[in-house]
């Protein structure tokens, strides 16, 4: 395999962007990434999106975006893996460059969620339609059931869940691209509207529009462009049963465990080598479980870690979701996995301003689909 380097990144602001179409969003992010990379062409592109068909009635996104980006006739492929679509699109771009098929590839992700679809219903298509959704369960409901089981098994508390939201809003307030640039208090989280017990509104990532894109290339291309070398050390992916009830454990996400194991092995790194980590905090409990299953904390201690501030930027132990995470930055589903990689790219380039982690050299991004049926993990290093 050839070494693969991230050489450019661009994203839209995340939020309720009623004036912009899905094409506007993707082309804005992709154009910024191409300009940031300084390349005069791309060989191929991927567009991650969860469900443009149900959200806005538009499929065939690879072709749509290549057309509007003005890059015909290069290969352009839509990648779908529910909420992990962006991360898997990045992995496809990585594999295409690593394999020697292409030298410069764009990996983008996009979602347009505010054009009027029944968002709860669309998101639920990432679960088992016949044996979960048929019974009325929602995504907040699935993660709420994980939370109840985690609280029962490990003593995780309501306050610990709130600590995740408080920390991520504090980080997101420092991110100009975040949907919510306001801090929240634990009291506000714990008094917000109940969505699915025990998860409240401020435990949930929002409905968002947005797009993000990065350019990956060979080491030769990066050196010719005189780039800081942000190398993709590992790309791994794992799967699990589509239904939460099909798992042996309701409190461990095995796809996260397996993807992380493979990523650490490929990168020849261990959890304590990570200087900055982006995890898929679609709900506060998801960050707690992810930080455990990535091996950052002992199983059952993720809540305590959040409440003790071990995941904050200030603590310098293991800063998690410096971007604000899905919770505060926003969660345009297909864009999320790419936006996580962008946060790592900027952290490793020392370009994160007020939310910069000092001396960040190695970072990890964990992006997952559904209630954990898909997970993709990437490790990047500044060399």
């Amino acid at each position, binding site marked *: 395999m050839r070494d693969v380097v991230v050489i450019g990144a661009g994203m839209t602001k995340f939020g309720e962007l009623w004036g912009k179409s899905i094409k506007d969003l993707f082309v804005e992010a992709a154009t910024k990434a191409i300009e940031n990379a300084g390349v005069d062409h791309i060989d191929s592109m991927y567009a991650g999106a969860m469900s443009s068909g149900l959200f806005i009635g538009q499929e065939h996104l690879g072709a749509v975006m290549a057309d509007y980006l003005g890059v015909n006739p290069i290969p352009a492929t839509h990648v779908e893996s529910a909420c992990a679509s962006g991360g898997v699109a990045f992995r496809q771009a990585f594999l295409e460059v690593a394999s020697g098929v292409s030298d410069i590839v764009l990996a983008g992700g996009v979602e347009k969620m505010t054009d009027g679809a029944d968002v709860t219903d669309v998101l639920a298509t990432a679960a088992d339609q016949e044996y979960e959704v*048929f019974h009325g369960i929602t995504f907040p409901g699935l993660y709420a059931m994980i939370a109840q089981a985690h609280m029962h098994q490990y003593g995780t508390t309501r306050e610990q869940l709130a600590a995740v939201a408080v920390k991520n809003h504090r980080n997101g307030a420092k991110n100009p691209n975040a949907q919510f640039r306001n801090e929240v208090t634990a009291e506000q989280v714990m008094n917000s509207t109940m969505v699915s017990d025990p998860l409240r509104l401020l435990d949930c990532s929002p409905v968002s529009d947005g797009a993000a894109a990065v350019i990956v290339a060979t080491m030769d291309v990066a050196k010719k462009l005189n780039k800081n070398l942000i190398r993709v050390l590992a790309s791994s992916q794992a799967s699990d049963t589509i239904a939460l*009830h099909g798992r042996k454990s309701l409190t461990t996400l095995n796809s996260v465990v397996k993807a992380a194991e493979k990523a650490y092995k490929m990168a020849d790194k261990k959890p304590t080598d990570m200087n900055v980590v982006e995890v898929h905090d679609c709900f506060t409990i998801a960050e707690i479980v992810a930080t455990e299953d990535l091996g950052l904390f002992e199983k059952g201690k993720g809540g305590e870690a959040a409440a003790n501030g071990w995941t904050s930027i200030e603590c310098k132990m293991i800063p998690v979701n410096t971007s604000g995470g899905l919770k505060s930055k926003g969660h345009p589903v297909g864009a999320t996995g790419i936006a996580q990689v962008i946060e790592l790219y900027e952290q490793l380039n020392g370009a994160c301003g007020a939310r910069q982690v000092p001396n960040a050299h190695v970072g990890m991004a964990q992006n997952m689909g559904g209630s954990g049926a898909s997970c993709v993990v990437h490790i990047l290093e500044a060399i």
Partner: protein
Amino acid sequence: MITARYHREIPQRYRLEASKCLKCGHINFPPRLLCPECKTNKFETIKLSDEGKLLTFTVVRVSSDRFSKETPFAVGIVELNDSVKVTTQIADVDVDELKIGQRVKLIFRKIQDDGKAGIHCYGYKAIAI
């Protein structure tokens, strides 16, 4: 819901029919063409136990449009006596009284309506025992 799609699941939703692998004994609910444990394709049809215990639950207060008239409603994961786990609504309970580990039984109930002109959709819900 398209009638054919609904009709295909009737043996499971009405009668809890599952498939038991003839080689390794793993029970699949719903039945599958390949056993995920041993990859063979020979099964016998069995009927699941309709009793079990609640492993986890939530109260859905914000639902998709299809279930919006039902909120709030409880949904849980039940482990039946034969170790098969299912996601199901929990009916006829005070949602504040629900507890992990409590015994439940699956009964036949209407699950959802397919709009004003569509079919009624039935299946199992759990009740406390």
